[in-house]
């Protein structure tokens, strides 16, 4: 299962999406302002796979070294493949 999050860490929607992924042992994909979740120490203890949209990261001036290790950067094609290959996709929080 994949949960897509577009709201920033400072929002209840964003936090709700991350909590759902944690509770359901799902993977996470961050787009738009959700990419701020990818910055270091904002995803403590998340065990699933996490993905972040490259275009939205660059647009917001977030540097590669700012991103938590283990979070995979993908492009739009990668996002489409991710959604196509998952059995269930839920979003956008």
């Amino acid at each position, binding site marked *: 299962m994949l949960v897509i999050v577009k709201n*920033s860490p400072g929002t209840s929607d964003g936090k709700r999406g991350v909590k759902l992924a944690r509770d359901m042992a799902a993977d996470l994909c961050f787009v738009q302002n959700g990419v701020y979740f990818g910055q270091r120490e904002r995803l403590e203890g998340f065990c699933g796979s996490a993905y972040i949209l490259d275009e939205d990261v660059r647009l917001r*001036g977030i540097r590669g070294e700012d991103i938590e290790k283990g979070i995979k950067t993908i492009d739009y094609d990668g996002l489409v493949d991710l959604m196509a290959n998952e059995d269930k996709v839920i979003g956008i929080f």
Partner: protein
Amino acid sequence: MGTIAMILRRSPYGDINAAEAVRHAMGGVADELSIDLILVDSGVLLAKKGQDDSGTGYTNLESALKDSIDMGVEVYADKLSVREQDMETADIVDGVKIVNGAEIAELIKEAKTTMIF
């Protein structure tokens, strides 16, 4: 007409608030109004250096913010919010003044009009 204080609380690109705040600020100084653009909460991310819009089709809001400063908009960023967003002074666009809560309160008190984005 007095000063207009524009408070931006939202991060750029996720919605139109940041772009609208900068557009209104520019419009104000173009009409020779005195504009204070105050960035708080995730609004301080508007002043983050290194925004790369290539291939996205978005208007680069870092450039727009610099243009507004050149036009005469006074831009302030809340010190606590800057720290909460894991940024340092070196990450902030030149010309943006980092201030504390008391200084922001003073700016708003002095302003005749306050607009919140």
